[in-house]
């Protein structure tokens, strides 16, 4: 059975940390490769961008159709064959 769960906002607090590391990590890499300098404004900007990505991903994941396994109920299960 396949169903679409629909868009709903998902907030997972600890993903803020992963998002922050993601944003700041890439900012430092861009500086190391000579693409830009680092400033306080950019530090805040990339950190916020990372946090937004970290929070937005679980929300986007809710848009993907999810295949749910239908578990048979106990009543519907066939009786065990006598040994």
């Amino acid at each position, binding site marked *: 059975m396949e169903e679409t769960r629909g868009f709903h906002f*998902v907030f997972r607090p600890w*993903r803020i940390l*992963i*998002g922050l*590391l*993601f944003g*700041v*990590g*890439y900012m*430092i*890499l*861009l*500086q*190391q*490769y*000579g*693409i*830009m*300098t*680092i*400033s*306080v*404004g*950019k*530090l805040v*900007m*990339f950190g*916020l*961008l*990372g946090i*937004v*990505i*970290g929070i937005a*991903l*679980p929300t*986007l*994941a*809710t848009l*993907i159709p*999810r*295949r*749910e396994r239908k578990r048979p109920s106990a009543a519907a299960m066939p009786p065990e064959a006598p040994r």
Partner: protein
Amino acid sequence: MKGLLLGLGALFIMLVVIPTASAKVDGPCTAMIAGADLMLTDKVTVQAGDTVDYVFAADQPVVAYELQLLYGPYAATPSQGTSESGDKQISGTANLGDYAWLGVGLYEVKGNVELADGSMCAGSILVEVEGNPLTTAVGATAAAISGASTIGLILLFLKDAGVLFS
């Protein structure tokens, strides 16, 4: 939410695409860093571990000077000093190799000069330190953090989508 994302996107483009520091000198001085005139050149390139020569000149005697390497909220001072000789020109060498732990890449180098009549001069230039980022402590750490957090976010997305660990 859409407005917030658009605003963040616009700020991101402004901060990344628009150059942060174009070389210039504010005040009655001329300045050269790594052989580049700050009034004419925006960026110079040096090799990792190289020394950087600087010259500050004015029509007044120079009494104090300072050369700063800016890295986000931090500022290192590779060279600074005072002068009582009455010279109108100060020159010296800053050893960027002492700051090799910062890695390679693009930095803003700022010079501040105080003149005998109390006026101040300030100038900045972008210095690109060439080298392989992955062989430096900062570069390798940033690469590891970026890679691990990217993989983590992908796995968490797939988990939320019900593709993994369901």
